[in-house]
């Protein structure tokens, strides 16, 4: 599967309070959370994000609270995947568990600029700018994580078990 979308770029240590502020955590419906996605990092994000768009960020994306509402809001906002230099661990496992594709890719996170069109080959983890030949590799997922991803998330994995 190839994901294609416009790049929205963020810096280092984007925390879950910025991704979905606690003032909106009195609900858990994905479509409600999507309305406030990334609000305290970029108040205009929810208004401008389009289906398939890609979030590109620096180190330690999703640090802070364990709130699964953070990846849920990103997924429900239509974001097709998140590329970062590194992910905070609870965000990482939450994204894997709910089936939001994420890619740890140092070089791609550096090279991709705001409003670039990016392409991501989910299977191979190859990332490129649209219409460019040069590709950047994302870190390969360990076998165990691949199995959860292939199942479509942890609950789907559980049902298979």
């Amino acid at each position, binding site marked *: 599967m190839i994901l294609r979308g416009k790049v929205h770029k963020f810096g280092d240590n984007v925390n879950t309070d910025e991704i979905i502020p606690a003032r909106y955590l009195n609900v*858990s419906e994905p479509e409600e959370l999507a309305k406030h996605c990334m609000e305290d990092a970029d108040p205009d994000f929810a208004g401008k994000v389009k289906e398939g768009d890609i979030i590109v960020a620096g180190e330690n994306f999703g640090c802070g609270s364990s709130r699964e509402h953070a990846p849920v809001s990103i997924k429900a906002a239509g974001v097709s995947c998140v590329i970062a230099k590194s992910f905070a661990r609870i965000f990482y496992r939450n994204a894997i568990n709910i089936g939001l594709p994420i890619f740890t890719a140092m070089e791609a996170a550096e090279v991709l600029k705001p409003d670039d069109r990016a392409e991501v080959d989910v299977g191979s983890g190859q990332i490129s700018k649209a219409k460019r030949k040069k590709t950047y590799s994302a870190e390969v997922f360990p076998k165990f994580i691949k199995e959860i991803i292939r199942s479509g998330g942890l609950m789907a994995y559980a049902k298979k078990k």
Partner: protein
Amino acid sequence: MGYTISEKILLAHAPGIKKIKPGDFIEAKVDLCLGNDITSPIAIKEFRKLGRKKVFNQKRVVLVPDHFLPAKDMKSANQANILKEFAGEFGIVNYFELGKMGVEHVLLPERGLIMPGDLMIGADSHTCTHGALGAFATGVGSTDLAYAMAFGECWLKVPETIQLRFTGKLKKWVGGKDLVLHAISDLGVSGALYKTIEFTGETIEALPMDDRFSMCNMAIEAGAKNGIIVPDKTTEKYVKAAIRKYKPVRKTYRLFRGDKDAVYSDIREYNVSGLEPVVAAPHLPSNGKPVSEFQDVKVDQVVIGSCTNGRISDFAQAAAVLKNKKVNPRTRLIVIPATQAVYLEAVREGYAEIFVRAGGVFCTPTCGPCLGGHMGILSEGETAVSTTNRNFVGRMGHPKSYVYLSNPAVAAASAVKGVIAHPADI
């Protein structure tokens, strides 16, 4: 090659596995799983999708609606109600209704629900607090909680361990909070990403449990998977007292310690005999500097409480500073004991009266303002000194508000002075 305490606990909870090493994935048996009023509704929804009639063990699922209760609005009341109904339907023994409810990471150890040697997961990032008892406790998400409620298991990657060794005798007004802020300012907010932080050394051995909880609580602020302290006499005394008082279902525990030849990915040493109280400036917990370096920072609000510093010894320190003093007219003081037991003790010891006479408010247990939930939200441009654990952008209210993290004595002193202050200057 020997094992660290964290590796030993994980190995003991990984059936059929004889050896582990950092980087391995295991499906571990959990002794306890925990959710709150923010994270449980999603977990319950996911759990119900599995169509199971039972949770894996009714005594080992703990639900604590501590974040927005007493309900701050109708939506949060609805969320909390999802927990209550689920607890009734599935016979969850450890559901804590308002009146019994307290901040989860203070409540569980207090009641003897988490024991040394346990493997615990919690759908709350500060679950790492419980490592202070010599347990492996880590924060996860709602879907993980749903999975654990169903199967009593959780997938985990075995983390590498960073050992932080503290030596030296602490000065007056310096405690666990200062030690951990000092360490985080050295490690950075992602310095321990995916790793265990093991706190050790003579300074830690001399620390009371309350301070140890404060330290393990903030391991996540360096990105860590868990914080842990090898259990000793102080730990056992605390655990035995909790068992005597609350008679929990499980009264046994296992004391693990690392092997002499255990492997650490990094060992750092801190001599802390000269350490001053540490204050972390906005907007990262790693921005810690000695309190004396903060001059003329005007303070609109002081919060004393939370899973970091909402225990009785925290209030004893704050009360020692606030006795016969008045809160500065430009500053609000909000004091929130973490549990009903802490609340009662603070009343009995006279601390509650000291806070109220000083011009502060003494509130019902809740996470409340720590995460910008309720009971003390900051407006645009306001500054708070808080004994909580995070000072991210917008954490306590408006995205253009400012949170400085400190220990309870510094927070109390800042309330009196109206600017960030050293308790010795009061």
